[in-house]
């Protein structure tokens, strides 16, 4: 446990090595919020308007919620795994008495902690600048389910990103391509740009069969009270099934990948 605590501390400090770089990364996040905030703000310029089942307060809470969710769910260092496989650095870890998965999960938590601190700060500043109406969930059951689905999203994203990183085991030169795919799926099918319930019901039903809505969209739906307690429980359960499936897939890919890993570049 101590060694992972040390990894956490070192990772946290590493994030500060290129401070301006990190701040620029956060600036990028704020710019992305601007696009979707003003887009929806324009659509809901009439405060009484209800579109796609959202009123102004709920949609703007969704947007601001996304900023926090992205810091928690998709802030990750695991993206570097493909590069480590490609240039053979993975071999260093295989020789050390550490779990490669726990190592990266710990680094992820360090990255998420720092990003969350900044995201909360940014959201507060944007709140005072933009003054959006907010929806506050008061039902304790829904809040608990929201937190559970949020933690599920963190675990699911870790597994998914690792699965897409595994592509580099077979194609060391092509590590970035599959990750680019994952980012697009998460952004569009996970509700990272828009709530997916603006799409026709048939498309939504198809999307719920994929893991992506369980990253951002479902947790935010639970928070906004758009799903009842039973529906929320069901959604958390399906998300849990995806965590098990993706964890199992990752384990199998890792075992198969190590058989073909050639430590090229070392």
């Amino acid at each position, binding site marked *: 446990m101590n060694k992972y605590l040390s990894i956490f501390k070192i990772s946290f400090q590493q994030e500060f090595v290129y401070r301006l770089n990190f701040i620029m990364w956060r600036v*990028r996040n704020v710019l992305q919020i601007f696009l979707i905030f003003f887009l929806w703000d324009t659509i809901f310029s009439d405060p009484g308007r209800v579109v796609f089942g959202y009123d102004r307060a709920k949609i703007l809470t969704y947007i601001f919620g996304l900023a926090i969710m992205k810091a928690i769910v998709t802030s990750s260092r695991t993206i570097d795994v493909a590069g480590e496989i490609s240039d053979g650095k993975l071999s260093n870890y295989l020789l050390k008495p550490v779990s490669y998965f726990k190592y990266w999960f710990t680094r992820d938590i360090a990255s998420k902690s720092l990003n969350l601190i900044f995201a909360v700060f940014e959201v507060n500043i944007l709140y005072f600048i933009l003054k959006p109406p907010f929806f506050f969930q008061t039902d304790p059951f829904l809040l608990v389910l929201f937190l559970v689905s949020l933690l599920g999203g963190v675990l699911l994203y870790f597994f998914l990103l690792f699965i897409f990183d595994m592509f580099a085991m077979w194609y060391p030169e092509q590590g970035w391509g599959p990750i680019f795919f994952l980012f697009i799926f998460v952004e569009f099918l996970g509700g990272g740009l828009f709530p997916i319930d603006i799409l026709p019901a048939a498309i939504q039903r198809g999307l719920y069969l994929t893991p992506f809505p369980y990253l951002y969209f479902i947790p935010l739906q639970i928070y906004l009270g758009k799903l009842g307690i039973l529906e929320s429980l069901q959604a958390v359960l399906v998300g849990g099934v995806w965590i098990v499936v993706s964890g199992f897939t990752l384990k199998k890919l890792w075992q198969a990948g190590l058989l073909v890993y050639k430590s090229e570049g070392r």
Partner: protein
Amino acid sequence: MKSLLRYINIWWLMSKNSFVSVFYSKLSLTLFLIAKTLRFLFFFVFIFFLLKGTNSLAGYNLNQTVFFFLTFNLVDITAQFLYREVYRFRPQVISGGLDLTLTKPISPLFRSLMGGADVIDLITIPPLIYAIFYVGRMLNPSLLHATYYLLLIVNGLLIATAFHIAVLGLGIITLEIDHTIMIYRDVTNLGRFPVDIYKQPLQGILTFLVPVGIMITLPAKALMGLVSPIGVFSSFLVGVAAVFLSIQFWNFALTKYTSASS
């Protein structure tokens, strides 16, 4: 004229090399092509269903909003096709590899800006132009407005060029930033929709300070007949001034290059 022909030849040679290296890895080419197409289609589907539910966005109907999005893509993808080398510039400065560019008998700015055209983006441009032609025709533009559109697209590319040159200059002055080009991308992404959706002062900033509005929104508005000849002329002034200032900035940045890592 002779110098221009020489640079066209050099560009063609460098682009051919870049294309060959991409075609060498067909898997990579296929993956990125599919991913970029998917991203475009997903966004298009989003706009389609959004406008189906709301009927209009800041006063623009579905066809007009789609046209803004297509115009954004044309400027953005063409700039990426031409200036992909900018994305690989920072490692050159850090490793000292820029020394090799500086000692060659061609403009280092030209080499750093246009040394690696992106064939993946090039492949996506023809269908995009067809889509622009198809949707643009539905807006019933006059010949004059279509001409304004083409002129302002050229101007948009001038401004995009200025941005890329400024990013190169920043890459020399401050080694710490490797997100600069991505920040440029995020800022221009604000132009996926007409800048009319943004409130002041952001709308003013996007129109005058970081002229995303002039780069992307204005050409599309010109096709819809919403821009006067004075507007077209003033936009060109902004475009030319932006390129001039960015070249000055590049020249200044070069004086700060220390070749420290080589």
